[in-house]
């Protein structure tokens, strides 16, 4: 079904970013526009999601060029779910950053870049064209470069060098893969490629392209041998910024992997084994990395790497149930990682410290807040019935069924390490008695803030925790959704018909 309104999430963010540029020195106006715009974005995302989930896949042919020739935008259940999650996280982060980001940084274009970043994410989720996906990836990383250098401190610049180099390299590998793919298949439309790729005689080159895509997306989503840039750069920007990075930037890589590997390159046994091994090693090495960190935010960064492994493992098994588990984990992870980094920012504002050894007594000072922060932490471990529990069960049972006992071991190991790390974090930060530290003059501590500022810091965490609780307690609904998405990923005929079929019925010469 053709519907031009599906581009609305992209256009809204684009308009917001442009409007915000006109208010570049008026911080209060920027805050109001950004929050109001983010609320509208959530409303639009919910509307689009309901439309697609209950009715059918929507498509839009840019400039009314017929499907394999022009750029197609496709809103299927998977992409609209991702847009919904991105909008929810963006709303929370927008509210949180009104207080946590310094005024000077806001004057240098924090909010416009923020909306450009969300625009890039929405575009990447909606596009049905592989080159267009590359362009959206570039929109995302250009905006994230602004974020990671905003403030220009020494650690930030160092983080930015690593972040920039690896992301640029990933883009170049991605583009190389597109070049070879276009040379081979002569098309860029993913639905069209899906049919064409099987008719190619030289399947060896197809494998090479698939590996190039795996490496390109693998760097972006931080899978095992390619993740080293992430823990070295994600802890450097502000808490609000790293929460949007943690929640969405690595996940867009996972989204692209799921898309490309379900639609264009159907993994064969070699590919499945490779991806499963990479998933297991990601779980293993990310977990070990988290174990040795005393810096709270570096530890969280390693947790991102560790938990990417669950989704990679799910993609590697490539059965409907495993993909459903991976998608469920993706849904859970976006919300919980955003929330975790926001909570990290809050803990930082309370303690003025990122080293866990020097923190403490938080439960004594703020018992209610501690319980609130416990929600994302326990969801991350997967304490039943919170949200991390259900996809893990699914992935574990599926690795039994497919006989991937190695992956099963890694999943259990990863969960155990997460449990251990979070328990240690809890006892260090919340239960341990803290010696009084000298206050740093340049930090605005939590207890020096006004009541409204405190509310702005805590509300987003409450908001995301409620969503997290819903994902855990209403797991039945989420499972129905993730099964639906997995069915669409395994049987891509509805997607292909929606893209290519729409072109044949919608000819206006």
């Amino acid at each position: 079904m053709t519907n031009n309104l599906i581009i609305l999430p992209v256009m809204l963010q684009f308009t917001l970013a442009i409007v915000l540029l006109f208010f570049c020195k008026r911080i209060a106006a920027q805050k109001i526009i950004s929050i109001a715009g983010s609320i509208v974005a959530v409303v639009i995302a919910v509307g689009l999601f309901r439309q697609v989930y209950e009715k059918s896949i929507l498509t839009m042919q840019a400039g009314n060029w017929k499907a394999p020739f022009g750029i197609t935008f496709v809103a299927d259940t998977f992409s609209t779910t991702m847009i919904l999650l991105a909008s929810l996280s963006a709303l929370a982060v927008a509210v949180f950053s009104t207080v946590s980001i310094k005024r000077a940084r806001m004057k240098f274009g924090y909010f416009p870049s923020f909306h450009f970043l969300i625009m890039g994410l929405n575009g990447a989720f909606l596009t049905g064209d592989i080159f267009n996906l590359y362009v959206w990836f570039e929109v995302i990383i250009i905006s994230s470069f602004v974020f990671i250098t905003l403030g220009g401190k020494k650690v930030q610049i160092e983080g930015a060098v690593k972040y920039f180099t690896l992301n640029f390299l990933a883009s170049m590998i991605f583009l190389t893969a597109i070049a070879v793919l276009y040379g081979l298949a002569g098309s860029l439309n993913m639905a069209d490629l899906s049919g064409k790729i099987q008719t190619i005689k030289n399947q060896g080159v197809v494998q090479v392209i698939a590996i190039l895509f795996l490496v390109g997306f693998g760097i972006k989503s931080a899978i095992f041998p390619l993740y080293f840039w992430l823990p070295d750069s994600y802890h450097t920007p502000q808490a609000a910024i790293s929460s949007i990075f943690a929640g969405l930037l690595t996940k867009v890589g996972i989204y692209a992997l799921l898309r490309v590997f379900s639609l264009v390159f159907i993994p064969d046994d070699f590919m499945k084994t490779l991806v499963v091994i990479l998933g297991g090693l990601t779980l293993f090495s990310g977990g070990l990395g988290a174990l040795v960190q005393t810096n709270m935010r570096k530890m969280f960064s390693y947790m991102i790497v560790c938990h990417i492994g669950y989704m990679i493992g799910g993609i590697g098994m490539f059965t409907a149930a495993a993909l459903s588990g991976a998608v469920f984990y993706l849904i859970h992870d976006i919300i919980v990682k955003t929330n975790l980094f926001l909570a990290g920012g809050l803990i930082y504002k309370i303690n003025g410290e990122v080293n866990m050894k020097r923190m403490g007594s938080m439960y004594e000072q703020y018992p209610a807040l501690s319980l609130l922060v416990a929600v994302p932490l326990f969801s991350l471990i997967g304490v039943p019935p919170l949200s991390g529990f259900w996809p893990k069960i699914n992935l574990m049972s599926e690795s039994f069924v497919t006989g991937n006992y190695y992956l099963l071991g890694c999943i259990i190991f990863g969960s155990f390490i997460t449990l251990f790390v979070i328990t240690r974090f809890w006892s260090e930060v919340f239960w341990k008695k803290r010696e009084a530290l000298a206050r740093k003059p340049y930090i605005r501590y939590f207890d020096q803030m006004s009541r409204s500022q405190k509310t702005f810091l805590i509300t987003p965490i409450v908001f995301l925790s409620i969503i997290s609780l819903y994902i855990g307690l209403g797991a039945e609904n989420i499972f129905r959704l993730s099964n639906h998405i997995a069915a669409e990923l395994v049987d891509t005929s509805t997607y292909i018909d929606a893209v290519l079929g729409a072109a044949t019925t919608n000819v206006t010469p």
Partner: protein
Amino acid sequence: MEIILAIIVGLLYASGIYLMLRRSLVKLVVGLVLLGNGVNLLIFLLGGLVRGKPPIIPAMDRVLGEIYADPVPQALILTAIVISFGMQSFAIVLIKRTYIVLGTDDMDEIHTTEEEDD
């Protein structure tokens, strides 16, 4: 022509990656530039080279009759050039800033572990 281009693409990739592996930040950026150009040439090469046949429909015809140059790779390269231009200018500003803040362009020196923040 294809052979020459293939060799040039290979050289650009090889020298780009070699320069990226060096320790100097300036060489890193030069490497990125070369790599970007290599990718653009690769798109051009794999899109198929056709000499002197622009994809323009003659005034009296309605469709293209003979073999013509595929316009899609050219559109892709144009987009990729614009993007890599933006990336490269960012990279140059970034290394300048890095040099001012750190006083070095040796990447082995980039390992501050101090926990400064605000």
